[in-house]
């Protein structure tokens, strides 16, 4: 019989909750430590999901762990230290909370790139420059996207790779989900405003997942979204808060200027800053992109460099909702396997 081994999960987003469901199902005692007031993590900020426009609430409801006598959820717990003590792990936050566990799952998720750092794009300065996360907020509220002074936009431009694949921001990796997010949001703009012209400026279109290309086809066929291959160099503001973009249409080989009412920056995913703290008192390591380093990225994606500590979801690398959930389930299975091996 399985005894009541205890597993601590740091981060109560979808990955943390999914892992908790699997583990409580297997009879383990589980504590989820969430740093915010409520569970759900970043997905709380999203309205509809690619590629089929399901409501993100569906996923949030589905991962909600059934109340279980073996499950303990602690919110507002900002864990900053994980230490090995007599074969167990001691997790502490900056108040007086200490939690002891036999194994730990890191599911700390990701941060969104701070678009104000990309100064030449004018976020935080020009009111009509928004981010993909701002767009989700508008969509979720049920309102239509308008210019800062409440007008229907005649033209909207989406900018790919903001804070990703950009040495100037220190992030040279691809965030993987923003191309498909850009296609999804572009369609959503035309659903709000059928007369609005929508342009997506990209360096490479990376729509890597199952059914993603179907969404791209739909964007072209039914929504007349225009895709322009060229990196935006800057945004400036003109009279009436209208924006002007400068890019090169690289397929035509000529510089391009465009006036637009709204610019949406498709911001990338970054590793959480607190990951550095979480590595301090143990053998955990970060990779070159500041995400948690796996023991190896093929067979041991969910194993960290500290035995007994496992990784789930987008604290490993940028991931979609699907991938995050799959990653969480495999992390949970790995925890089970390792605790059983210990017992023998």
């Amino acid at each position, binding site marked *: 019989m399985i005894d009541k081994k205890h597993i601590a999960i740091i981060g109560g987003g979808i990955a943390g909750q999914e892992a908790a469901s699997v583990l409580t199902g297997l009879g383990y005692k589980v504590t989820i430590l969430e740093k915010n007031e409520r569970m759900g993590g970043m997905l709380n900020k999203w309205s509809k999901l690619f590629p089929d426009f399901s409501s993100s609430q569906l996923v949030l409801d589905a991962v909600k762990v059934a109340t279980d006598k073996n499950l303990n959820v602690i919110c507002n717990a900002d864990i900053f230290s994980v230490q090995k003590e007599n074969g167990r792990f001691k997790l502490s936050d900056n108040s007086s909370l200490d939690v002891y566990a036999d194994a730990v799952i890191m599911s700390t998720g990701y941060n969104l790139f701070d678009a104000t750092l990309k100064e030449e794009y004018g976020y935080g300065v020009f009111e009509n420059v928004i981010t993909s996360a701002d767009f989700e907020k508008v969509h979720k509220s049920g309102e239509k996207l308008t210019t800062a002074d409440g007008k229907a936009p005649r033209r909207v431009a989406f900018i790919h790779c903001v804070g990703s694949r950009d040495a100037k921001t220190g992030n040279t990796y691809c965030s993987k989900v923003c191309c498909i997010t850009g296609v999804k949001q572009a369609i959503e703009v035309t659903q709000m405003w059928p007369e609005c012209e929508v342009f997506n400026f990209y360096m490479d279109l990376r729509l890597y997942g199952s059914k993603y290309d179907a969404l791209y086809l739909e964007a072209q066929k039914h929504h007349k979204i225009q895709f322009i291959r060229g*990196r935006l160099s800057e945004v400036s503001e003109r009279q009436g808060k209208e924006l002007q973009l400068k890019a090169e249409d690289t397929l035509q080989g000529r510089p391009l200027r465009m006036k637009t009412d709204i610019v949406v920056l498709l911001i990338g995913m970054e590793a959480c800053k607190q990951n550095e703290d979480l590595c301090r008192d143990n053998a955990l390591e970060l990779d070159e992109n500041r995400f948690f380093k796996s023991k190896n990225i093929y067979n041991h994606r969910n194993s960290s460099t500290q035995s007994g500590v496992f990784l789930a979801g987008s604290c490993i690398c940028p991931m979609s909702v699907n991938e995050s959930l799959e990653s969480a389930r495999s992390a949970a299975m790995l925890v089970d396997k390792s605790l059983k091996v210990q017992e023998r």
Partner: protein
Amino acid sequence: MSQFDFLQPKSRQIEIEQFDDRILTYVLEREQSFLTCISCGGCTATCSAGNLTSFNVRKIGLSLRRGNINDLSDEVQKCMFCGKCTLVCPRDINIRNVVLLIKKGIAQLETEKTL
């Protein structure tokens, strides 16, 4: 020469084998960062010279990489060396220096020719 030469007009295809990589080698030896260009066009979009003339700094880089060096010497004269291209490059390439090196590389090739 065959009298039926007109039946075989000059091919429009790119002949990879015939690429002249002398200037490319010269540039890469001195500015390795140029290896990673992805032709995103950020440099061209911001380029001072490119907004006034037909000068296209991204295409210059591309021609160089493809060993198409015939027109380069006239083209690079249009650059004002303001450095804006380098400021926007997502790959952190010193593209201003690439243009400068093309100029130098061509000059060197010419001196070699006259020797």
